[in-house]
């Protein structure tokens, strides 16, 4: 071992424990989790919120706080895993918090047992928290207060239902929620600029294919496929007025030309590098245009006017927008997929892409500095942030967070600019919009029914009389459905209309059957999805749900839509 470099520092204890997740969101994502403080406002049977927290305590959020004023009953023990017999009669917030803390000594847990009505009106009650989860039922006026806070403090608010076999959540994200690190799938094609090569790349391809015809078999079989494509594109242009293949027909014709270049007088009867080139023609020969969602970012008001206090994202977006206006392409990301090639050729090719990426980055960085000076910004944006943006420019995403529905007793549900699209989706076979409508109706029912005359605890449909409540719930849901159709300014004819009515009636019956019950499996599944969304919101990585998701545990199906 004398020839080996000196021993390395192995992974730290923390890196070992979190190894399997660090491979997904990295050290920056982990740091964001560790800086978070999540508030759970726990209501109803209180399982889905606790299951959500479980999946966040394990990967190591900083802190959590549970607000819950009820005491532990027998019924809790049959559905909540984070309570034990000895906790009967004690505060649910306290004991669930303690058992959750056991899962990870790195996480701090707190609890509040004061009733929400008095606690929430205290000034600064919500100040310590970076994200809020509220589980249904929540009094409409309190939910509205949370929603206002989310809008003002620019923090994510999740509202979650888990009732019998069904669940729902909506998320209210800040009105501008940008994501740079969207983790595009490996199936996404790399941006290789084959149709818009820069001089150094062309020159490299030319050198490597100078004597293609007379190359030794081994050399010929190791010309990187990117170089082959660039070579044949130049040949093609010579006979096509300098144009590259554009239509599907031209591309298939071009593909044939490439495949005819392969040598077949060998034991394998072909060449792997040519196979790779042929396979890449249809997906790689596309003009490197930015997607419409990326172009929308460049024209967003926040992007057009950079101020002293503009978030970093918009400053970089503005600079990249300038680059795009100037060249008609985004900065080169700089990565090259693996391909059949000799080590040296591949590394050289990689360097051609890397140095172009560095050059583009330098230009973007210059614009960033210019913008900073113009806007009198005091702290310069870190170069690594600009670099990350340039690398992923084609896949950046902007989510326009917005408030979700807060059903107020006796008031119509407003659908606004979403009415038309949702009314249309309502009529699709197997649409789950009817399920969402019944969740809204469920909220209206609980807002207008109390367990006792004192107006203390909300009563869910089916807690005592399933049949009567199913009918009431159906009635409320149908009114909401008719309201949606009316607001969309459309008509739904029979048989579609009757079909949707029947669906709503069936969902309502199944809700009433459950009473207020949570089923542990549905709570656990929903807690899984919500915690995944919370991780996305905190780490600002991956693409979040925008903004509502429902799950149907009878059919094992989900749907996502924007409300």
């Amino acid at each position: 071992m004398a020839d080996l470099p000196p021993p390395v520092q192995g992974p730290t204890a923390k890196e070992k424990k979190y190894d399997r997740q660090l491979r997904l969101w990295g050290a920056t994502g982990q740091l964001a989790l560790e800086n978070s403080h999540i508030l759970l406002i726990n209501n109803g049977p209180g399982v889905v919120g606790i299951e959500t927290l479980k999946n966040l305590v394990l990967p190591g959020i900083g802190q959590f706080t549970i607000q819950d004023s009820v005491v532990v009953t027998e019924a809790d023990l049959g559905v909540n895993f984070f309570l034990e017999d000895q906790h009967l009669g004690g505060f649910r917030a306290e004991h669930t918090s303690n058992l959750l803390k056991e899962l990870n000594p790195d996480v701090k847990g707190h609890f509040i047992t004061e009733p929400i009505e008095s606690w929430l009106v205290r000034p600064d009650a919500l100040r310590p928290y970076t994200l809020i989860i509220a589980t249904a039922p929540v009094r409409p006026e309190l939910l509205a207060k949370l929603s206002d806070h989310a809008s003002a403090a620019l923090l994510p608010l999740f509202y979650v239902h888990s009732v019998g076999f069904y669940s729902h959540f909506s998320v209210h994200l800040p009105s501008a929620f940008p994501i740079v690190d969207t983790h595009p799938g490996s199936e996404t094609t790399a941006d290789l600029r084959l149709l818009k090569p820069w001089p150094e790349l062309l020159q490299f391809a030319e050198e490597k294919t100078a004597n293609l015809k007379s190359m030794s078999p081994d050399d010929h079989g190791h010309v990187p496929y990117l170089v082959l494509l660039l070579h044949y594109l130049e040949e093609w242009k010579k006979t096509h007025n300098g144009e590259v293949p554009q239509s599907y027909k031209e591309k298939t014709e071009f593909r044939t030309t490439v495949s005819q270049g392969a040598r077949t007088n060998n034991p394998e009867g072909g060449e792997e590098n040519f196979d790779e080139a042929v396979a890449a023609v249809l997906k790689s020969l596309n003009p490197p245009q930015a997607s419409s969602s990326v172009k929308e970012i460049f024209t967003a008001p926040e992007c057009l006017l950079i101020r002293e206090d503009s978030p970093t994202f918009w400053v970089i977006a503005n600079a990249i927008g300038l680059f795009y206006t100037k060249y008609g392409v985004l900065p080169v990301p700089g990565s090259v997929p693996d391909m059949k090639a000799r080590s040296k050729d591949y590394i050289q090719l990689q360097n051609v892409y890397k140095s172009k990426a560095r050059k583009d980055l330098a230009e973007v960085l210059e614009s960033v500095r210019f913008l900073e000076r113009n806007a009198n910004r005091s702290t310069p944006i870190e170069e690594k942030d600009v670099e990350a943006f340039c690398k992923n420019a084609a896949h950046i995403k902007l989510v326009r967070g917005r408030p979700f529905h807060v059903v107020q007793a006796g008031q119509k549900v407003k659908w606004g600019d979403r009415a038309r699209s949702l009314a249309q989706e309502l009529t699709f076979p197997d649409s789950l919009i009817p399920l969402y409508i019944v969740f809204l109706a469920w909220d209206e029912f609980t807002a207008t029914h109390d367990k006792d005359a004192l107006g203390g605890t909300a009563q869910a449909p089916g807690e005592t009389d399933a049949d009567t409540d199913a009918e009431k719930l159906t009635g409320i849901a149908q009114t909401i459905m008719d309201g949606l159709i009316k607001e969309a300014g459309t008509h739904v004819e029979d048989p579609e209309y009757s079909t949707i009515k029947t669906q709503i009636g069936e969902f309502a019956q199944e809700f009433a059957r459950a009473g207020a019950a949570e089923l542990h499996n549905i709570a656990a599944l929903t807690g899984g999805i919500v915690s995944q969304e919370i991780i996305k919101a905190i780490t600002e990585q991956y693409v979040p749900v925008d903004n509502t998701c429902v799950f149907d545990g009878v059919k094992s199906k989900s749907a996502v839509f924007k409300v």
Partner: protein
Amino acid sequence: MSIEAQNPVSGTTASPRARWKYLDNILTRSGPFTDPDAFMPGETVIESLSRAKVLLSGAGGLGCEILKNLALSGFKDIHVIDMDTIDVSNLNRQFLFRQADVGSYKAEVAARFVEKRVKGVKITPYCGKIQDKDEAYYMQFAMIVCGLDSIEARRWINATLVGMVDENDPDSLKPLVDGGTEGFKGQARVILPTMTSCIECQLDMHAPRAAVPLCTLATIPRQPQHCIEWAHIIAWEEERKEITLDNDDPEHITWLFQKALKRAQEFNIEGVTYSMTQGVVKNIIPAIASTNAIVAASCCNEAFKIATNTNPFLGYPETANYMMYTGDDSVYTYTFEHQKKDDCPVCGAGNIARPLPVNPNITLQEFIDGLAERPEAQLKKPSIRTGEKSLYMQMAGLEEQTRPNLEKKLSDLVEDGEEILLTDKSFPTQFKYKLVYQK
């Protein structure tokens, strides 16, 4: 029907069902989708649920979740099998384990924990391999739920359950509920052995990652992973042959890392890290608590519906049997019916041979090496024979006799279109393929 079961609001008294108040709403009331012939609300279903004996295979990331969920779904008699011991990297998701449990058997610790937390449930652990157990053992269960990370173990249990089905004995048909995850993605599926598409029918949905050709590793590495694989497969053999490589030994990983790093520097390749070395050598699949929670809960939701008929379940013949989940780009599920395949080597009805396109010019050795990677086969150590003769046998004695065939061309051993039979000691079944020569 007992009073407690009828009255779901009796939570304040200490009645024996008070704890199950929420579950009993579902168990005592019919719903719009329940099948009146199958669902017996009240005492009947409560009784049958508490008697149903369920086997959980796997006590890792999915297994911990499944065990908790089954116990809180009202199952009272659960058995759990797992051969592994607890590692520190399990603690970010396997929530039944603590730092102090590192090194203990997963099945044992998980069973004790859930038994203590959920009163009235009996959990029987077995710390060993599923292959240790025979048909008589599997016959005692109403259902098998799998939370495994190995495709081989799934295929073994699938083939065993298909083989157990006796048409004259309805009790011999054991529903198999299976979950799997990778990063933000996963799937849950239900199999009724011999009746619906089985794990083997669905094998090509879980294609193995293609291995990097040996010549790339040996002569023209381009990626940091190539350098690590070189250290792992070639350098270790050359320099430390006398030591058995232990993926969990930090000294061994460090050695491989340093070897790989040095090779990468020689070729100007960037990006070799300790963590990447570990990932490549151990074939680490990223895993998080939330995805496990989703897939495990979906499996248990189906298991609960199968056991109780409280609602229609996935896997009922001619309905959806597979739910695919993707969570990295918004949330997307795809629930569909995967069709049973007539040429399935395990559950295929007519014993039709599955066609396998091959190049007739490769040697038998190359053919065997390729089988491990082919999505429709995925066999690592097969023995091969045709109707007439043995081509290659893994068994000692026979191996020597058939070894010379390894160097021969396929076309010298088998006719185009001829059927071959493969057996692999990992599977209690034989696989029938038809070789189709590619021009």
